[in-house]
């Protein structure tokens, strides 16, 4: 990977970390709810049993529901940092699972 790209990614990560620290609910609803939705549904698609086409269609149907549920939860939880922490954790764990999984082909 190009060093410029690495630096760019690094800057974005630092900016995201700063924004999350400063406004955890706002960053959660705008960014982390989406990333957690996408990564967790991708993991579901990899590991839920059954025919692939069926799984893909069902998961597509549930994506908006999961996304909105997570967005709603970010302002519902009494502890302001908890949604951000959990959503970031879900994103990282699911990202790791996808990274180390074999592609579905």
């Amino acid at each position, binding site marked *: 990977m190009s060093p410029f790209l690495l630096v760019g990614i690094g800057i974005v990560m630092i900016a995201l970390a700063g924004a999350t620290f400063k406004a955890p609910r706002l960053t959660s609803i705008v960014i982390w709810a989406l990333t957690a939705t996408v990564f967790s549904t*991708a993991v579901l698609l990899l590991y839920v049993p059954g025919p692939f086409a*069926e799984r893909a269609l069902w998961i597509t149907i549930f*994506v908006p529901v999961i996304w909105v549920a997570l967005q709603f939860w970010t*302002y519902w939880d*009494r502890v302001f940092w908890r949604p951000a922490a959990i959503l970031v954790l879900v994103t990282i764990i699911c990202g790791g699972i996808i990274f180390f999984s074999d592609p579905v082909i």
Partner: protein
Amino acid sequence: MDRARHLRNYDLHSWSGLALGLFVYIVVFSGSVALFFHEVQSWEDPARRLGIAEPPIEMNAIFTNWIDKHSNGDPIEFLRFTYPTAYAPYYTGRASIKRENEEAKFISQRWDTSTGAPLPERGEGMSRWLLDFHRDLMWPDFLGGHTAGRTIVGIVGIILMLSIVTGVVAHTKITKELFTLRFFRSIRLKWQDAHKVLGLWGLPFYSMIAFTGAILGVLAIIAPLIAVLTFKGDQTALMNAVLGEPVEASGISAEMLSVDDLADLKMPGSNERVRFITMAHYGDTNARFDIYFAPDKELKLVEGYQINGVTGEKTDGGSTFRTSTATRVLTSFSPLHFGTYGGVLLKFAYFILGIMLSVITALGMMMWVERRRHGSTGSRPKKVYEWVSKGTAGTMIGLVIASAFLLCHDKVYTGLEEKRLFWTGITFFLVWFMAIGFAFFRQNEYAVTKELLTATALLLCSAVVLNAIKTNDTLLAIFGSGHKIAAYVDLSLVVLGLATIAVAAKLPKARDHNSNSGRRLSDLFIHLSLKDAVNGIRALFANSIKPREMPVDKEPFRK
């Protein structure tokens, strides 16, 4: 629910509505108009008012000659043959031909059902503009094109879902609010009650439209994202895994089945006739014809099956034609969203509910501004809220008048047909921006709304007159025996014009500056709730009637 949580939820509702309220309004209003896509197409295009010959002329020779003439041996990427319907009473052929080292060329032709003569092509215009503006905001290619536009519209669906959820949670007294409409109280209370009543009564419809809209929109981003993650970027592999592997051409030429013979096919278990056929590998022994029928009873836009284009034997068309619970659910979203499953009366019901949703969005934004311009809420200078108010009024009513203007534009346009859509878009934005400019120039949003709505009503009625002048078809065609769809559109435009004039006449010319007080004796008799009335009398004597509102914090997002 504790107070802090209630306030957070309320803030989320108001800020999600405010931040993307205009987008939601634009998508919802354009969607309400786009419901009548087919009817408006009949109104704008005189060729759609022809009768269908009985029996229609045989088309196979004409169709194959047309393909041979244009393809000239080059590969045909896409080919479709459409049979006549009430909304398009002619045969249509569409093809995409790929020449070596050139971009694919798209061609289209319509033929008269009685003579087989080619009908003059008419460029896509107002109906296409309004439909695509709803579906992808006509997003420019250099900014990502239709996919990006569709994604944005899908995100609007997500925001609408979030607003609905937070709105419902915010209403702790739903049964009471369903019947509370205090028309003669302060502006704020009137708007607030109308926002709640319209929102709660139409809740199932709004939830459905937001969810199906989100699905139809976010599919554009979800599919590539899932491909990147699970297929390591191979989107074709993902499509093949879901839809099935496509058949390759054999390279051996063969005679194709006649489109006249295929017209007699029936969908098993249904009496519906073939609506259109898409053809892959035309002229090859491995040709595949996807035969589509109008749906019988299921919530589908179309249904069908695949056959071999040479032998007519049924083949496996992949998940497009395979019926499973997931495909049944997924394919129901389009008809549910566009209201195509229940005739024109259902479309009118959708239209009214869509306009109600637009009004709810508008009221939400108006309340937000009103609280800040004429209340104690808000930390910005009044000038900022004044600008927001003008911009909101101009954008919202501007969209209405721009849409109405397109009806007249369609009838007076005399330019090239292939440029019709382009000039439709230019006219649309020009009128819209002029309306926004007028809102800032006029310095009175109440007058702006009233005047622009009156102008909209005049445009709607003018369109009927222009249609009569240009096509000689009038409202009286309803009583005749020929084509009636255009006449019903005329009638709807007149009714809509009169309703718009009535609404505009009822609107105030300026803000009633005494409307904040809410201390009128007459108010007490407007309450639909007896308990409220008793409380009102008590409060009146105590000289302490105040608009019942949720306290709003000055900070936009609480921790």
